[in-house]
């Protein structure tokens, strides 16, 4: 038969074990909850029949750059989705522009956004690769340009490689 003192000791021991497990589960819950919360952006790029989706996970890698290939004259369709997984409203200025190296070529989107808690906003634009060839690059050579998305100190860069049209004999 167990004495009241021994019973109390066992209860206290079980309580500490229970609390240890509870704290551990709390840490796991924080990891899952905190990982879900935040502002996430996804870029979808369509050229011809192929759609490439750059998820928010990729952007979290340091200096991640997206790459897309297109043939000259093709349109490249971009869709940019901002997902506000927070309780508060997310406000920012979204700017999208085409860059050749360090020189800005043209603006594609310039808009202020106010996204409510757990809401999304989507932008889309089209780039006509037939109109962008720099004058100093001959028609037989491929060229590249960058589409840079800026918002709230965050920069996303997508490099578009444009293949020159096949030479006709």
């Amino acid at each position: 038969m167990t004495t009241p003192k021994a019973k109390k000791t066992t209860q206290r021991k079980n309580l500490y074990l229970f609390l240890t497990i509870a704290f551990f589960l709390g840490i796991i819950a924080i990891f899952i909850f905190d990982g879900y919360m935040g502002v996430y952006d996804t870029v979808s790029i369509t050229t011809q029949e192929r759609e490439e989706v750059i998820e928010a996970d990729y952007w979290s890698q340091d200096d991640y750059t997206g790459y897309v290939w297109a043939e000259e004259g093709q349109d490249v369709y971009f869709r940019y989705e901002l997902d506000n997984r927070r309780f508060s409203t997310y406000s920012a200025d979204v700017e999208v522009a085409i860059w050749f190296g360090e020189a800005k070529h043209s603006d594609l989107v310039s808009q202020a956004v106010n996204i409510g808690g757990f809401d999304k906003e989507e932008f889309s634009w089209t780039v006509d690769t037939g109109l962008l060839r720099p004058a100093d690059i001959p028609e037989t050579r491929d060229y590249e340009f960058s589409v840079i998305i800026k918002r709230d100190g965050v920069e996303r860069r997508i490099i578009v490689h444009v293949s020159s049209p096949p030479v006709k004999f």
Partner: protein
Amino acid sequence: MKLEYVLFGFGILFCLAGVGYLAAQYVRYLSELGQLISLLLTVGLFTCLGKYFEEVGW
């Protein structure tokens, strides 16, 4: 008998090192508030674990 304890010790050490490494990798992606709460919960966890072993008689 003693060798078993040494092996148990190594096993526990490797488990803790593995969990610690994974946590260190993941904690970089947590917000500052999340990191603070995780730290407090970790302190609570080890305090209660220590008290548990104290009650057990270690």
